[in-house]
């Protein structure tokens, strides 16, 4: 083995020490998943309502940029923009259940996936291998969202035929009460 001891008398004193600092940035794959989720929602909303699409596009930019830069605040505003776009599409343009479900889902998912990526960046940095972690988390969140959307749509399709909105609302408030009572 080559002895590169500091005390070899020739290169004495100056030893190269390369400091490894963690780049506290979210992993690129995480950024991509969050931005993709936001873009899907924006596309679905943009098809039914132009103003909602515009607001959602701002949301996509904020989600993508915020996640890339590791800023939870920008990411949060992005998710809020997506929620606002969903409200806009439903309230002003009278969009149907499909686009609204996709919009709400994409807002929740882009916050979840983006925040997860930012957290990974904080704790592990960009160089670290986090693919399994990211994939598992994304799979969990997406399936929860998909099941929730499917159940909600099923209940809506079954109940909204003759029932007033109020019945649906009571159903939801009941669900919220149940969730809060759960520990």
């Amino acid at each position, binding site marked *: *083995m080559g002895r*590169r001891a*500091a*005390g*070899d*008398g*020739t290169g*004495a*004193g*100056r*030893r*190269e*020490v*390369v*400091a*490894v*600092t*963690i780049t506290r940035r979210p992993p690129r794959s995480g950024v991509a998943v969050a931005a993709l989720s936001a873009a899907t929602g924006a596309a679905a909303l943009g098809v039914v309502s132009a103003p909602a699409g515009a607001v959602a596009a701002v949301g996509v930019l904020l989600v993508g940029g915020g996640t890339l830069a590791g800023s939870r605040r920008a990411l949060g505003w992005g998710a809020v923009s997506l929620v606002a776009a*969903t*409200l806009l599409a*439903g*309230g002003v343009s009278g969009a149907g*259940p499909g686009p*609204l*479900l996709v919009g*709400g*889902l994409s807002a*929740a998912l882009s916050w*979840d996936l983006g925040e997860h990526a930012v*957290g*990974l960046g*904080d*704790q*592990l*940095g960009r*160089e*670290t*291998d*986090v693919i*399994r*972690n990211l994939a*598992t*988390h994304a799979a*969990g*969140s997406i399936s929860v*969202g998909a099941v*929730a*959307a499917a159940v*909600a*749509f099923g209940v*809506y399709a079954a109940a*909204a035929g003759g029932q007033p*909105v109020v019945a*649906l609302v009571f159903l*939801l408030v009941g*669900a*919220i009460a149940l*969730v*809060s009572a*759960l520990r």
Partner: protein
Amino acid sequence: MSGRSTRAGGNGGATRDGRSSTDDAANGRNVPDGLPPQLRPKGIVPTGRWAGMAGLALIPVALGVLLRHPPLVLAGAVGVAFAAYARGDTAPDPELTLERELSEPAPDPGDEVTVTLRVRNDGDRVLPDLRIVDGVPAALATEGSARLGTALRPGRTATLRYTLTAVRGAHEFDPVHVVARNPSGSRERDARVAAGGATTLRCTPELEASTSLPLRGLTTVYSGRVPTDVGGAGLEFHSTREYRHGDPAKRVNWARYARTGELSTLQFREERAATVVVCVDARRGSYLAPDDESANAVERGVEAASQAVPALLDGGDRVGVAAFGPGDCLLEPGVGDDHAARVRDLLATHPALAPTPSDERFLPTSWLRRFRRWLPADAQVIFCTPLTDDYAATVARRLDAYGHAVTVISPDPTADDTPGRRLARVERANRVSGLRSAGLRVLEWGDEPLATELERAAARWSR
């Protein structure tokens, strides 16, 4: 995560913070900067990432009611579902076995060591979100990330592999920082887990005598190689004196006898062995370097010691080692191969001489009192110090005054890119000339190798 050191300079000497700023990297923070480790949350911590979700979900519901548009209620339902998901999710309780393996537990300095950390899920539940940060010793630089983000099914093993560059010292790995979250990420458990297998990296440089250090005239009664002012048997002419009965015939000054008929005896300089204690200034404030890439002054002091000691031992001198810093580091003067091995081990791995400063409290005055009591009366002192404060100069001058001939080897850690640093450099230069005018030998060690500087200085020093 490396032996980085702060720059010398600033106000009245040097910046005091010698600790590497990147060691936070080993702690995998999930809390704001600046929180001391004892305040960091342990155990189960709610992450708060879903806070307010249920409230937010009510907005589309309310709007749906007001505008009589039922589909809006659906968007709210999705939000409620996520709130329920986060709420109902239990905190993970990871049961992990960690095993660390080093490709070479005792490398040479500069060698690359591959570290393999295996993580096995011993519990019977899936760990969907597991973040692992290995406790890399503060002085070691890593290549590749010593972190891993993964998901583990029961019984499965994940492997983290990275490379370290070895530097002098006995480096203890810290416990591995494990953060486990539940699938929704609403709660996480923060834990430190001790890894099995290798926990220490020992890097002991060879002692290599590159140059002989000229010693001062304080010697023992044993013969050696230090020329003294005492006349007797030796090589170099010293004086003549009257013949005394019993003087060896070959030392009689025959030339003078032929000229005058009087018997007289030649005397030569006696060469004797010295007792030398090499003392390295390893106080917190001495971990200084001119820039991030350079070795700090303590590292260079240890390097000077590890070059001086073998040369002295080869010359038959008794050599001891001490550290002027926290942690008892005193090695009685001795000779022989066993002693050389002890010195090598001490210089390489003693915590008082570690490449990064320790947090222990240090009282220099009581250290000096203890050191003087310990120091053999006929011992010379080689003091390796950057001389970045007045107390180091005081120590040197005081030891010299007590009769221990002191030679100062002073690695120069100062830079000159800011006014403060230039001031520190001037102050240090003043200390050096102060010591010189007090009759001490001072070797200023700049960028050149130590042997070159010694050569230059030795030509200047008188006996």
